[in-house]
């Protein structure tokens, strides 16, 4: 029945889930990425316990200190502990990117599944809206929105979600379109399931794994976008410890103290890179045939 164009769809659910998990666990890159992500998560969660100092405490007498025992990474231009700020910034970056992701999924899953499932005029209208959003470079558009509604972290998150959901909605719509043609969807309809039940109990069940992989792949991008916009002064405002803000703060000292820019940069690089490794690993595990290439989106 109905040709499926990707191998994983022929594998029965339970076996598929098991295989996927095994593939994922065997992927060394993904495991390394996962390890780093978990490490950062732990650091973020335990920030008050492991940070040696208050990240907001200004001590102008001890500004721009080199690394020492009491300040392992030195102090910044206001004498705040660089390590403590990095640790608290992890918390800010991770929690906010997850918040943006949740907002994106909250919009894109209903829109994508309604669009794909209902088809027709509804599909057309919703997809034209996403077309409009996708026609703009996402960072520039969220920059514009964030600038319009005023610089604050909350506004930045809203702006990012308002722009980034469109791509997701499209991908989810595609998955729904593919799943809804399956015979078991017809069978579910025939047995009296409402459209809502068909979507929530069957279609979403099958779309969930790819959505999770997609999300893991995107977290990196979101962290980068948040840091980037904060660096431009549109998101978190000083003195909030945030990687982008820290980068901006230490910009004047790049000649004398380049390490102040290096630390937050390195943190962003590590987190974004490892989220990408995890997402890529998940994607490969779901669809082993596609090899190591990036999904073309």
């Amino acid at each position, binding site marked *: 029945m109905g040709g499926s164009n990707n191998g994983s769809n022929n594998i029965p659910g339970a076996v598929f889930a098991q295989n996927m998990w095994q593939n994922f666990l065997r992927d060394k890159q993904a495991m390394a990425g996962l390890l780093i992500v978990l490490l950062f998560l732990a650091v973020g969660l335990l920030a008050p316990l492991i940070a040696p100092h208050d990240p907001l405490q200004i001590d102008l007498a001890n500004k721009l200190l080199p690394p020492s025992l009491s300040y392992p990474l030195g102090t910044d231009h206001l004498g705040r502990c660089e390590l403590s700020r990095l640790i608290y910034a992890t918390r800010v970056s991770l929690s906010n990117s997850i918040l943006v992701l949740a907002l994106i999924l909250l919009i894109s899953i209903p829109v994508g599944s309604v669009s794909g499932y209902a088809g027709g005029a509804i599909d057309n209208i919703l997809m034209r809206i996403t077309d409009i959003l996708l026609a703009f470079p996402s960072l520039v558009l969220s920059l514009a929105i964030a600038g319009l509604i005023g610089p604050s972290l909350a506004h930045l998150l809203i702006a990012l979600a308002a722009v980034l959901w469109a791509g997701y909605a499209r991908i989810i719509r595609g998955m729904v379109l593919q799943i809804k043609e399956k015979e078991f969807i017809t*069978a579910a309809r*025939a047995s009296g399931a409402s459209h809502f039940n068909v979507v929530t109990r*069957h279609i979403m069940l099958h779309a969930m794994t790819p959505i999770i992989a997609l999300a893991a792949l995107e977290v990196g991008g979101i962290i980068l976008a948040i840091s980037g916009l904060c660096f431009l002064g549109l998101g978190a405002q000083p003195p909030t410890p945030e990687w982008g803000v820290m980068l901006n703060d230490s910009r004047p000292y790049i000649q004398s103290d380049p390490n102040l820019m290096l630390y937050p940069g390195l943190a962003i690089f590590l987190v974004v890179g490892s989220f990408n490794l995890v997402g890529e690993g998940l994607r490969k595990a779901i669809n082993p045939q596609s090899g190591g290439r990036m999904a073309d989106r």
Partner: protein
Amino acid sequence: MSKHFKAGGSLFQGGKEIVPAVDGVSLALSEGETLGLVGESGCGKSTLARLILGLERVTEGRIYYQGQEITGLDYTKLCDVRQNIQMVFQDSYASFDPFYTVAGIIGEPLTNFGNNGRSLGNEINSIMERVGLEPAYASRYPHELSGGQLQRVGIARALILYPKLLLCDEPVSSLDFAIKAQILGLLKDLKQQLGLTYLFISHDLSAIRYICDRVAVMYLGKIVEILSMRRLLEDICHPYTTALLAAVPVADPRLRQAERGHIKGEPPRFAGVAGGCRFYFRCPHAIPLCREVEPVLEKVGTAHAVACHLKHELGLGEQLSEVRTGGPGDSGEIYSQERSG
């Protein structure tokens, strides 16, 4: 009380080309009977079943169930209908969500109708017992079951709502012979136990003969003949029915006849059937009239209707006996003409 289906002229639009998958079909099913629906692949049998269940939209015509029109109902009303009409799918495996266990699959119709309570498990167990599935299978996944077991699960899912009408869409055509007999036997038993009515779709005449009271023969979206199973051999009249029957493989080589009566080629594309008899191009008895005028389904006996201009000439069993004995001086070549233009 009678159940009356009329699926008249439903046209499916595929692109610009209109494909009449089911075209002007009129069928009536009375309670407690098993009506067979037989025809070649792609002649619209399954589409008819989907139409009855409201899974496809009827383009034209009406469907009645227990005297009430059920064409184009909205969801809530359609649910009442679906509680009484259920379907067994040809490819059970594809019709099960691979993430669901057997119990989940069988129980789904019940949960759809609001039963989430404790009785759910009991219902599932009792229906599994009825269709001959060990309770141990309840926690298995579809891919862990054999073809016969899958079909039993499919039947259990269709029966858990205790419907009155069961649409069996080729329920045994994917099974091997021994299992096929088991499933057919099961369907027959269940029908008696639960007082079911079947619409039994198949291209397999041996299965139809085993289970059906009446048989409707479909060709390219139209019913060409309706026969009572008891008088099948006596009444058979339409050349297409004859050909279908002649195509049934005979196990004993001594009983096989020459390939007379076999039709050749494939049915023409739907788009090309405007005007005239649809079977014209493959019919061994076609006369010029057949090309011009489409024959209508006419009643010729108490339980026999046929759509053929030559129904009286070809009449009633004579043709079949000719086929069975093998006509004199015939090389077995039959009239088959490529459609032109």
